[in-house]
């Protein structure tokens, strides 16, 4: 099957700044994919290249097999992008904006889908209001609607929930999940890593213009899986044999880092042998945020 997005050895230079340094990435059709990285990692530059907003210095990109430079019209037809910046055209109402955007994509009578989009994004009562009069969250919804107006099979959302309240965030993700279930490929950049963990099946992490991690969310979590155990002991002392596992101590709680859950059995056995009883115990698994910080830290 043709990949939804194919990025091959992409380099981008802005003068002396080497923003992307040989990025290779393939997103398959139907995936819900996260592109993560700190500010300045090159996420938006990569998205801009895909969308034709920036020109690649070296390498090539294709959307559903259409080269974004040589076959840009087809590539843009199959791609919907929600830009990061909260932009709007002060002259027009929400419905006018959506009709124009439909027309730019060659769609004449698109009102049925526009109405559905307005409904799904909670914008029906704002349809005839000037976009400049909407709140930030509402403007963000309009941007999402604009990106989806031509029913693109590949949708890229560049931090779509930045500055958006919790309720809208939930509604938006519910809607995007439905689009994904219907077969749309979704690529997402976000600073809310719990969103990426909950939604995305695969993750790429970018740092200083390079992909430093690329795997399924599950593999990334298990590959960096360390189990953290917090215990309160009676008497309040950690046996010497467990000292190498100690990550910290606070208010009578000892934090131990284990390679996996099975190692907990050994910890409990050591405590029993040392005649130390467990007064309280908490076990926690790492989340994507910890994995992200660990990977970013390792590659520093």
């Amino acid at each position, binding site marked *: 099957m043709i990949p939804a997005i194919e990025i091959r050895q992409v380099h981008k230079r*802005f003068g002396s700044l080497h923003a992307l340094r040989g990025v290779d990435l393939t997103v398959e059709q139907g995936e819900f994919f996260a592109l993560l990285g700190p500010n300045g990692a090159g996420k938006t530059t990569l998205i*801009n290249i895909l*969308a*034709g*907003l*920036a*020109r690649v210095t070296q390498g090539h990109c294709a959307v559903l097999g259409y080269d974004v430079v040589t076959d*840009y*019209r*087809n590539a*843009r*037809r199959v*791609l919907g*992008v929600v*830009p990061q*910046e909260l*932009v*709007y*055209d*002060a*002259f*027009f109402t929400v419905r*006018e*904006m959506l*009709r*124009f*955007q*439909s*027309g*730019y*994509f*060659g*769609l*004449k009578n698109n009102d049925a889908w526009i109405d559905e989009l307005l409904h799904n994004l909670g914008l029906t009562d704002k349809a005839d209001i000037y976009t400049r009069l909407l709140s930030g969250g509402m403007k963000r919804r309009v941007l999402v609607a*604009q*990106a989806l107006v*031509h029913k693109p099979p590949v949708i890229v959302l560049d931090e779509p929930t930045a500055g958006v309240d919790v309720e809208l965030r939930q509604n938006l993700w519910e809607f995007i999940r439905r689009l994904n279930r219907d077969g749309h490929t979704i690529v997402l950049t976000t600073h809310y890593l719990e969103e990426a963990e909950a939604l995305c099946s695969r993750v790429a992490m970018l740092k200083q213009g390079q992909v430093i991690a690329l795997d399924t969310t599950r593999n990334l979590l298990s590959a960096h899986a360390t189990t953290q155990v917090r215990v309160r002991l009676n008497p309040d002392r950690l046996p010497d044999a467990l000292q190498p596992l100690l990550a910290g101590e606070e208010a009578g709680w000892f934090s131990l880092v284990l390679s996996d859950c099975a190692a907990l059995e050994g910890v409990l056995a050591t405590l029993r042998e040392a005649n130390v009883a467990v007064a309280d115990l908490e076990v926690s698994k790492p989340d994507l945020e910890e994995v992200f910080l660990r990977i970013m830290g390792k590659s520093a």
Partner: protein
Amino acid sequence: MTGLWTLFYKELLRFWKVSLQTILSPLVSTLLYLLIFSHVLEAHVQVYPGVGYTAFLIPGLVMMAMLQNAFANSSSSLIQSKMNGNIVFLLLPPLAYWEFFTAYVAAAVVRGMVVGLGVGLVSMWFTALPLAHPLWTVLFALAGCVMLGAVGIITALWAGSYDQMAAVQNFLIMPLTFLSGVFYSINSLPPFWQALSRYNPVFYLIDGFRYGFFGVSDVSPLLGLSIVGTCCLALSLTTLALLKSGYKLRN
């Protein structure tokens, strides 16, 4: 072609929604020129034999209004989109560079023509104008609006701020349109200024446009149309090349 029509319609709607500023305001200021200059000079100046100064002035003012508004339309729309960031709405869809050009220039032509027609109609209260060669009038009007519509796009593409945009408008477009024979025949100028005026393409636009009304001009209308046509073509090709390359639009 749906994309082109949509962009053209959007550009029309944009200036129509603020028509007080985009149509009525230039119409009123042009008529004020007419009122003042015709009042002061009607009795003292006769440029062409048998043509009163007010009648002589009207085609020049109409053309000046058309040119300034054609420029203002494409340039202000594009610079606003660039500065506000909503240009992205035009860069993400599969619009071709020539559709972009055609829509912006066509909207500039419409605005120029609407303002020009408005000035022309209201000025009929002042004096009756002959229309010796209507086709020449239309040809020069069209060429002028296309030319300045294209210049508007080039300027807005180049400008990195509203200040730079205003600089081009005030230090290039305004002098070129004012010093082009709107208020006088270049034959009345000293030889140096007369020779300099012949390097100003706007002079040929106004002279040719005026020929359409009176059948009299400072230079041959055919020569004028050739020069204007060449400028139009060169500016259009330059604009198309800039848009195709993504100059200051796509990094």
